[in-house]
């Protein structure tokens, strides 16, 4: 399978014309529920003007969590997710559909990548190798945008910097606002390299230097190291953020695509430790036992 994958990847690299990739075309038919103009999301509170920090940034500080009923099992097929969770827990979860473009809500894989995604989907319940298991389930960092629909997080603002600290796995992101360039492309990072700026009440963050190891969901949702994300965090009222992430990866996807997550303000609480594999005995067992 690995050889087939590499072969397909090579073919994909040969046939992809990067110059053909452009911004997503506007939807021609009636937009689906949840679709919004990424450049101008409607304000929940039409009279809302974001208060400013002392250095003039729109004040986005506080504790937030997604309110779009997204569970990371599958962002493409919420009915599958519902069935899986119902089978496991007996509880039927709400179904969130974050992908607003393309309008079918699916990740627009290139043909070869579609096959590999289907393979990962088949593997996810009982993977034949650990590399086919969800990287987050293995204790790796989530990557962007997945971390943003994983759980609760806090935003702090400082002159020239926005800081995200996530409850899950003590993940953090330091986002400078001074237009400095990304680090050299040889540097690959689980959480990418974030550079931000404000456009009105929208924090725009460009995330590059991503490695090819993170997934967007438990059932697969892979990408290459060409993965690139532009996030748009728009305050539309005092307690609501529309979060849009436009994702491109010319090696794996046929076109850029966009997901939307609505964030709701939460009561600010202390962030207590969320260790992930510490204390788990699996490493000793798998490694042959050190003790």
């Amino acid at each position, binding site marked *: 399978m690995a050889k087939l994958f590499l072969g397909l990847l090579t073919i994909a690299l040969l046939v992809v014309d990067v110059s053909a990739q452009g911004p997503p075309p506007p939807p021609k038919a009636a937009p689906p529920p949840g679709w919004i103009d990424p450049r101008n999301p409607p304000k929940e509170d039409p009279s809302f003007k974001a208060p400013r920090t*002392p250095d003039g940034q729109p004040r986005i500080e506080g504790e937030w969590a997604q309110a779009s009923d997204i569970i990371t099992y599958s962002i493409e097929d919420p009915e599958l997710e519902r069935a899986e969770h119902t089978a496991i827990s007996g509880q039927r979860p709400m179904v969130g559909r974050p992908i607003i473009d393309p309008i079918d809500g699916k990740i627009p894989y290139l043909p070869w990548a579609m096959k590999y995604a289907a393979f990962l989907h088949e593997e996810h319940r009982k993977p034949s190798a*650990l590399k086919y298991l969800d990287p987050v389930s*293995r*204790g*790796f*960092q989530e990557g962007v945008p997945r971390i943003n629909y994983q759980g609760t997080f806090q935003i*702090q603002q*400082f002159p020239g*910097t926005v*800081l995200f*600290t996530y409850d899950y*796995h*003590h*993940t*953090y992101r*330091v986002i*400078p606002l001074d237009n*400095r360039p990304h*680090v050299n492309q040889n*540097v*690959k*990072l*689980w*959480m990418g390299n974030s550079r931000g700026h404000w456009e009105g009440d929208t924090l725009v963050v460009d995330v590059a230097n991503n*490695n*090819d*190891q993170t997934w967007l969901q438990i059932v697969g949702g892979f990408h290459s*190291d060409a993965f690139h994300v532009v996030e748009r965090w728009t305050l539309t009222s005092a307690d609501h953020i529309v979060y849009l992430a436009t994702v491109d990866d010319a090696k794996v996807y046929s076109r850029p695509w966009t997901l939307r997550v609505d964030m709701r303000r939460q009561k600010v609480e*202390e*962030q*207590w*430790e969320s*260790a*992930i*594999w*510490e*204390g*788990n005995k*699996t*490493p*000793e067992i*798998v*490694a042959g036992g*050190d003790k």
Partner: protein
Amino acid sequence: MRIRLRDSLVSMLVVVAGLSVAAAQAPAYRAPRTADGKPDLSGIWQAMNTASFDIQAHSASKDVPAGVGVVEGNDIPYQPSALAKKRENFAKRATLDPETKCYLPGVPRIMYMPHPFQIFQKPGQITMLFEYVHATRFIYTNGTKHPEGHIDWWMGDSRGRWEGDTLVVDVVDFNEDTWFDRAGNYHSDELHVVERFTPLDADHITYDVTVEDAKVFSRPWRMSMVLYRNRDKNAQLLEYDCYGFDEAFHAPAQSQ
């Protein structure tokens, strides 16, 4: 002319002497302030010593630089049985050191890992972000107390207060699974750490640590070192995601 020169030399000596007295009596350096008037510790910092290998004085060995140690007086007052365990830890450090399993390294060990960390400061809360295993510390300086417990945390619970220009951090609620270094120096879950961060000048912080643990040590003991500001033009935190979960141990976790 000669007289005037002599006079001015005398005046200079008086001034210098006065400055020296002032330096001995009061902090020679007053740190810039945050909006709420506290010394501003924000920035990217890193220790520049060999404490991560061994907090005590040690000769060089393979891949280990020699070091004069950071423990005051160099001796750590282990109780007799604890000293035996420390020695066993040292002998078996290649497998017993929690660092080899990529666990969160605890406090104070995280402060002198050979990786940078960044301090962000708000009224009521100081956030420390570490490149090493993307560890975080939230130090609450809002007058709150440690939560009820004992809580077994890898990084403990940190509550801070200002004493003049010094940030004093009280840390409890540790588990017994972290070490102080790669040389087997260890503690129990009764570990109590008091850290003192004192700005030395714009680019240096004196970092003093008092350690007590009645199960392991016969009395409290202290470490002291300097934290250095990273002034490189492009200084920023990257990642050192040491991975220790399933099929293999990787340090750092493979990124591609």
